[in-house]
């Protein structure tokens, strides 16, 4: 682990160093280019001015002025040529081709005549006409600029090593900082993995990317801690809800084995046992279903469905049950309401809401099922005249197995609302539980889920 961090540090330092060097090289190149442009322009103006000055002299002073320019430094050059291009005076062997007598400097190659011989030289040169026939050429070597380039090159070479060292140092420091944080994280995450779920990652500055990541991971850990806590409770509740019917089944079978006189008695006991086992199986089926809905992405079966038809069927299904318990089951909707969802799951949610409302409403009470639009949302509302759900309990009723204590006597595994919650969540709807008189539960389907 450590050596991996080490090599990461070195790689980082190298990468930062290289990037730094590249920047320096680009910078120097730019400086060099800009200086060359500046110097060329500067010398162009200079020779243009000199050519004008010489041309403005009386014709008798021309040759003298030209000779004066032909310096021994081999930088400046000048020449006067006749119309045929033959040299009259100066240190330029012949009239350079491509040169136009317009008084504007251009880059040409000339043959320079010095006391010790001739040589070609790259110059900036300007040509003007003297009177009607002769041409004056004034040039200036640009090879002199090479010296300047050498200075820049040397500066670059000299600064390169220290710059590289500095860059590597900066890189090492930066990556060391990151490494130290990651090592600290590794240690903390190790502790969390080992089971210390209360541990959290440090957040130093809120804006730093590392700290943002820490904050997200901390939020995730909060959620995991909560879920693990819930899981422990669910485990207890599952055990309890399974044990009760199973204990009954066991007692029934045991009694029948010891006491049954006839096959019919035995069969009666078996039937009772099957009912008990079915209850236990129902708990397991419901749990598996919730898990499947919560973890599944069953959006493939989503389509445009008529909520009114679905809820209407659910109401009709429960009508005889409500009737038997002398509960008035009212509906407040008529027209089709199209929403996007899974028909079977929405039916299950509606059925569970109605089932729940009927279960918790005392005889002679009333359950109302309504569908309406509110601020563009489609709302399915199930209200009853039962004992209601206390404010403190509203959050937890959708958790698995939670059942308000006062209604603990009502039959059912307490999974209905958690199933509804899972279905609602899968659809991207909202569940709202309010107290009225009694209890009001609303499934709010946002407009975005409506078909366009």
């Amino acid at each position: 682990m450590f050596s991996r961090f080490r090599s990461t540090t070195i790689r980082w330092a190298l990468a930062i160093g290289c990037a730094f060097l590249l920047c320096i090289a680009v910078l120097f190149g730019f400086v060099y280019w800009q200086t060359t442009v500046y110097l060329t322009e500067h010398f162009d103006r200079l020779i243009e001015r000199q050519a004008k000055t010489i041309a403005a002299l009386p014709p008798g002073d021309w040759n003298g002025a030209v000779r004066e320019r032909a310096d021994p430094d081999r930088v400046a050059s000048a020449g006067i040529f006749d119309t045929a291009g033959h040299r009259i005076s100066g240190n330029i062997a012949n009239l350079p081709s491509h040169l136009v007598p317009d008084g504007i400097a251009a880059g040409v190659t000339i043959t320079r005549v010095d006391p010790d011989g001739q040589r070609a030289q790259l110059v900036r040169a300007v040509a003007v006409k003297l009177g009607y026939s002769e041409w004056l050429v004034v040039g200036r070597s640009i090879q002199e600029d090479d010296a300047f380039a050498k200075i820049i090159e040397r500066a670059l070479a000299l600064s390169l090593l220290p710059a590289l060292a500095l860059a590597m140092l900066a890189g090492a420091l930066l990556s060391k900082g990151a490494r130290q944080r990651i090592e600290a994280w590794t240690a903390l995450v190790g502790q969390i993995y080992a089971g210390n779920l209360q541990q959290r990652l440090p957040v130093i500055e809120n804006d730093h990317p590392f700290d943002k990541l820490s904050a997200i991971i901390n939020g995730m850990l909060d959620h995991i801690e909560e879920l693990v806590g819930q899981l422990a409770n669910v485990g207890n509740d599952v055990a309890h809800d399974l044990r009760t019917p199973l204990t009954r089944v066991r007692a029934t079978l045991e009694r029948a084995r010891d006491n049954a006189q006839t096959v019919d008695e035995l069969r009666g006991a078996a039937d009772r046992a099957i009912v008990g086992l079915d209850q236990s199986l129902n708990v397991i089926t419901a749990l598996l279903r919730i898990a499947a809905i919560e973890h599944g992405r069953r959006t493939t079966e989503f389509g445009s469905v008529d909520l009114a038809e679905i809820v209407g069927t659910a109401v009709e299904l429960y009508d005889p049950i409500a009737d038997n318990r002398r509960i008035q089951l009212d509906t407040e909707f008529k027209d089709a309401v199209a929403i996007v969802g899974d028909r079977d799951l929405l039916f299950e949610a509606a059925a569970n809401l109605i089932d729940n409302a009927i279960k918790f409403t005392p005889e002679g009470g009333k359950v109302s099922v309504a569908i309406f639009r509110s601020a563009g949302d489609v709302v399915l509302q199930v209200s009853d005249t039962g004992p209601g759900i206390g404010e403190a309990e509203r959050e937890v009723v959708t958790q698995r197995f939670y059942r308000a204590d006062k209604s603990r006597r009502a039959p059912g595994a307490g999974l209905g609302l958690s199933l509804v919650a899972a279905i609602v969540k899968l659809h991207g709807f909202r569940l709202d539980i309010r107290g009225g008189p009694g209890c009001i539960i609303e499934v709010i389907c946002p407009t975005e889920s409506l078909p366009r």
Partner: protein
Amino acid sequence: MSGEIASATNAVAAYRRLNNVVGSKQLESMPDRTMAKLLLIEDDDETAEEIVGELTHRGYTLVRAETGTHGLDLARTGEHDVLIVDRLLPGIDGLAIIESLRREQIRTPVLVLSALGALDERVRGLRAGGDDYLSKPFALVELVARIEALLRRPAVGRETRLRVGPLELDLIDRSATRGGRTLDLLPREFRLLEYMMRRPDQMVTRAMLFEDVWNYRFVPDSNLVDVHMGKLRHKVDAPGEEPLIHNVRGAGFILRTNV
């Protein structure tokens, strides 16, 4: 030592005797069936034994294949009346078997068994060409009822009247009579009775009724369907009349004609 073995043997024998008594009685309560040939493709020995035991006991001829490949070979003969195919098999997957059979134009009805909890599974099973889908764990009566239903699929007739025993349904007027007495049925009760009359003397389970009459996949509390059926029975079987709708304890309902 030998005494223990003897008592264990006795216990097993006693259990078998008891089983036979119960079993033969159940057989009596079920309608007679021609010796239908079934093919079970199931890799799990325990499940297979249970199914084979129950179905042979009920008079079916059952062949079991342990692997998908073997099962597919047997199914290709086309000599079975119903195939019972496990969804997850080593080698060839259950759905793949159904798909290749349907491609080869073998239309034997298929009941898919699956332990997969995923919600889409049923849809996938039916889309692949399965005719019914049962998720594990299931009650054996549910399996038997569904096999019966596959064996005796109601003819999709264009008839306008249904007659079973003294019962008569007019599918156009949506009116029902029993021996001349008009039955005042709610729309859902009418559909419930129609479903039963299309399957006379055949057991229908609550889940089947729910799927086909209410048209929703849902596992309702068992008494939910019972309450509806109770209301229907109350109207169909008036006091003093021979009851037609019978409750099969722990399983479902039968509309009996041989009264």
